[in-house]
């Protein structure tokens, strides 16, 4: 393939991924979050804009687009402005390796890398840099505290996620996301690896900074954490990054444990979306049900419980793959 076709494909892919994530993950995700939280708290949620409140986040986005950009005095303008780009960009990069379904011409994935899950771990780790930049660049103590907490939290929880990724890769015999899904055509990995699945869910909740692990943006202590000082569309871009990352984590969980696009009767993409939204619902359910942890409990939970458990699980799986299965 000539290089300019590759370049064009990359540009088109970026636009497609960006608009899909912005509409499906961020806009619809926020609406769903508000509806689910309303339902759990015996409220109705947004109802006024559009049929059953469906256009509420669209209206919010248009409102945010019109708002003024406020840069705090003594903030670091370069870092303050560039942090906005890094967080959503890192979240969008995750989608390159997510297999959404399969067609007659092969799996529906932007690029089937042979280092698929490693790539996912690498790009999602870049978000921490953006969060630290936002926290520091705002010149605000709450933002800085939020940024530092987030860095400590995400660095700690990347380790159990990495160990779970290795465990699944061991079972599948490949790091490629497409191969991992193909291997699960008969038995989903949630059946053979329930412990891994639970570790991944807990660690992913912490990794995307959602309650009960949302110390980063604990409203009662830190206003909104690292993005307290951001206004208008910059604020919206952080929301996009956050929801994009949550959907990416859920998509990865579907790929690794729930058999990806596999399912009877319905088309593969539909199955993928059903599983994706089921997991998103679980994330939201957890968020509106459990109270927040303290930061020391959170870090202890990762280092003293999740990591040893994930290591043990890895050793047992390796033993099974290398000795029993042979």
């Amino acid at each position, binding site marked *: 393939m000539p*290089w300019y076709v590759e370049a064009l494909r990359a540009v088109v892919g970026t636009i497609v991924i960006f608009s899909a994530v912005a509409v499906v993950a961020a806009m619809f995700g926020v609406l769903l979050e508000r509806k689910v939280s309303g339902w759990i708290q015996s409220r109705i949620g947004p109802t006024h804009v559009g049929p059953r409140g469906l256009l509420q986040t669209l209206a919010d986005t248009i409102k945010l687009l019109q708002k003024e950009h406020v840069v705090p005095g003594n903030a670091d303008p370069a870092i303050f402005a560039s942090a906005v780009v890094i967080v959503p960009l890192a979240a969008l990069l995750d989608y390159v390796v997510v297999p959404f379904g399969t067609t007659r011409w092969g799996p529906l994935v932007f690029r089937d890398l042979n280092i698929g899950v490693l790539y996912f771990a690498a790009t999602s*780790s870049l978000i921490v840099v953006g969060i630290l930049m936002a926290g520091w660049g705002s010149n605000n103590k709450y933002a800085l505290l939020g940024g530092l907490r987030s860095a400590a939290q995400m660095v700690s929880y990347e380790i159990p996620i990495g160990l779970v990724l290795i465990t699944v890769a061991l079972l599948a015999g490949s790091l490629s996301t497409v191969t991992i899904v193909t291997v699960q055509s008969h038995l989903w990995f949630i059946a053979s690896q329930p412990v891994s699945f639970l570790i991944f869910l807990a660690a992913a909740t912490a990794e995307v900074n959602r309650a009960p692990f949302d110390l980063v943006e604990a409203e009662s202590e830190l206003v909104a954490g690292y993005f307290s000082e951001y206004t208008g569309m910059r604020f919206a871009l952080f929301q996009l990054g956050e929801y994009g990352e949550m959907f990416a984590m859920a998509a990865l969980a579907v790929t690794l444990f729930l058999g990806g696009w596999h399912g009877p009767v319905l088309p593969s993409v539909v199955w993928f979306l059903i599983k994706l939204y089921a997991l998103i619902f679980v994330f939201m359910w957890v968020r509106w049900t459990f109270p927040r942890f303290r930061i020391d409990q959170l870090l202890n939970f990762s280092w003293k419980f999740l990591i040893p458990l994930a290591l043990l699980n890895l050793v047992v799986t390796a033993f099974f793959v290398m000795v029993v299965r042979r």
Partner: protein
Amino acid sequence: MIGEAVAFYVLAAITLASGVVVATSPNLMHSAIALVPTLLGVTGIYILLNAEFVAGIQVLIYAGGITVLILFVIMLTEGGTGLRVRQRNEQVAIAAAVSAAVAALFIALAGRTPWAQGAGTLPSYTPGAIGQNFLGPNLLLFEGTSVVLLVTLVGAILIARKEAGE
């Protein structure tokens, strides 16, 4: 080939430009953050060379791990942030001369070396092949590295424990 050349020059420009910021910025935070594009530019060159695994590890460890560690240390250091640090002293002329000499030497070397071209096909560069290599021909190196890592881990735990007991 044109595409590869264009990509290489763009990546090299990104790496060099942010490298200059790392070395010369009077603000420690700016230096640390400019490390990210530097490392990502190198990652891009790895990808150009078909070394995807190294590229993934580079982003995971360096751009996502080490940079965060550096940022963390700067933020926790009193007076490290927001302070304007002087980046040059009276030795600037000598340093420039030495750097220029080393650069000239490297460029001359690269120009004179007869690079072996098209010697057979590239060895397969998949994670599986790398794993076989680690546990086969390079087992001793691999085990040596793992012992070093283990010592580091035990050391870190010891230091943390002492502080907790006091």
